[in-house]
């Protein structure tokens, strides 16, 4: 899909009425297209090429790339830096911000900086506890929580001021996102929590991995009952499971993750378990597309990123649409925008 009002491909778009960002992800969602986002695992490296290579895998298959912020409380290249590198090439990014490592002074500065670099989407997260990662000795900050982070970002954008009240000369034009776990306990309150996030400013959500479509449907019914459909775009988290053993390990060790027994059994019974995991992911995406209120999928293919194009391709959800990527329209654009 080429937007006709795209000045230079990869550059921010004009902001349409009713939109809050110049980004392609918001355009796609508001146009009613089924959106695809994917998570990029930032490298344990200071080499920018590693970031470029990891992004290139998704070329032509995703509408935006999530840059994670110390996910699992493990140290990697920062989300701000990954966004800085990739926005230079024109990629659409979802910058993740976790409340674990920074206070409100640092976070507000990052939001301004991100928008200045061309980041159009921000995902507001509480973040994992430090005990989950490779630096359990660290100080957990948690000055804000995901909810107050959302309202902080909205204050910067809509009220053109910091939390302190000090005015901004230009506000960050960002599309605000949050996470949601429809499968976590207390399950009956999960949709209500989403309602609260929408009230705090969330315009889209990306969920925890979904391996149980009936359970998701129950959640979506409650979301509809709360009158949230149409107020928030819901992208469901999906990802290929490498093997029955991986699935078993994940559901035992990752709190809040729900994988039904039937899924583990199906993987265990397969000749090629990794292939079966990918097939399962394709089927899930196809089923999710049919669920009322689902606006897209968010692929988290940790250490299997190279399988994303094939999964998206086989799911057929893009319906022939090729999301923009550097070099897609050679006759129209410079590929890499020189820093001048």
């Amino acid at each position, binding site marked *: 899909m080429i937007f006709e009002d795209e000045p230079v491909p990869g550059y921010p778009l004009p902001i349409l009425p009713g939109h809050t960002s110049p980004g392609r992800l918001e355009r796609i969602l508001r146009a009613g297209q089924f959106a695809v986002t994917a998570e990029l695992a930032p490298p344990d490296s200071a080499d920018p090429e590693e970031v470029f290579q990891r992004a290139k895998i998704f070329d032509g298959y995703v509408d935006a790339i999530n840059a994670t912020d110390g996910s699992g409380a493990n140290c990697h290249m920062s989300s701000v830096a990954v966004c800085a590198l990739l926005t230079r090439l024109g990629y659409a990014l979802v910058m993740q911000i976790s409340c674990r490592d920074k206070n409100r002074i640092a976070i507000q500065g990052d939001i301004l900086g991100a928008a200045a670099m061309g980041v159009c989407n921000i995902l507001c997260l509480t973040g994992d506890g430090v005990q*989950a990662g490779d630096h359990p000795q660290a100080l957990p900050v948690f*000055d804000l*929580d*995901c*909810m107050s982070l959302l309202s902080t970002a909205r204050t910067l954008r809509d009220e053109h001021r910091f939390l302190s009240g000090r005015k901004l000369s230009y506000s960050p034009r960002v599309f605000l996102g949050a996470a949601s776990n429809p499968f976590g306990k207390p399950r009956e309150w999960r949709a209500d929590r989403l309602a609260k996030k929408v009230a705090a400013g969330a315009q889209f959500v990306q969920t925890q991995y979904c391996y149980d479509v009936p359970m998701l449907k129950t959640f979506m019914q409650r979301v509809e009952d709360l009158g949230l459909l149409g107020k928030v775009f819901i992208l469901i988290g999906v990802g290929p499971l490498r093997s029955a053993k991986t699935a078993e390990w994940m559901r035992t060790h990752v709190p809040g993750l729900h994988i039904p027994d039937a899924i583990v059994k199906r993987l265990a019974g397969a000749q090629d378990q990794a292939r079966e995991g990918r097939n399962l992911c394709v089927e899930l995406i196809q089923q999710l597309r049919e669920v009322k209120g689902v606006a897209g999928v968010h692929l988290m293919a940790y250490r299997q990123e190279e399988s994303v194009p094939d999964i998206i391709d086989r799911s057929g959800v893009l319906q022939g649409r090729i999301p923009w990527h550097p070099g897609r329209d050679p006759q129209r654009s410079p590929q890499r925008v020189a820093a001048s």
Partner: protein
Amino acid sequence: MYAVRLWSVRHARGLNTFYRGFETALAMLHPLFKRLGYERLEPPVAAVERTVKGFLFDCKMCGQCVLSSTGMSCPMNCPKQLRNGPCGGVRDNGHCEVRPEMKCVWHQAVTGSARIAGGREALSQVQPAVDRRLQGRSSWLRVMRERAGEPA
């Protein structure tokens, strides 16, 4: 104390009713407190508040109490200090992902608020970011001044 904290959530309705009465009584004492001087009263009142609420709720004296909106489960006992509901990592048995031996503060809050009339609505209110300057100060005195229309 952990066991007492769980008891308090089980008795959220009674405690909330008691607190409502207590808050009204406090509000009536405003003229007296004003004459004595709120700042002078801060240390002894904060000490009493710390003892009572510490015993009942494992109160952390954040200075901006939201217990009535959280089913009498103190959110500052959450390792992530969440003020707006449970994170995505609550275990299947309703325990905390960071401290597996502890029941999730927010799982408790959802249970406790179901026992209070209007508790669910209160739980749905978006709580603002914590003002860290109020740490250690009395919430009671703050509420008294707010109710009297004075700057807290």
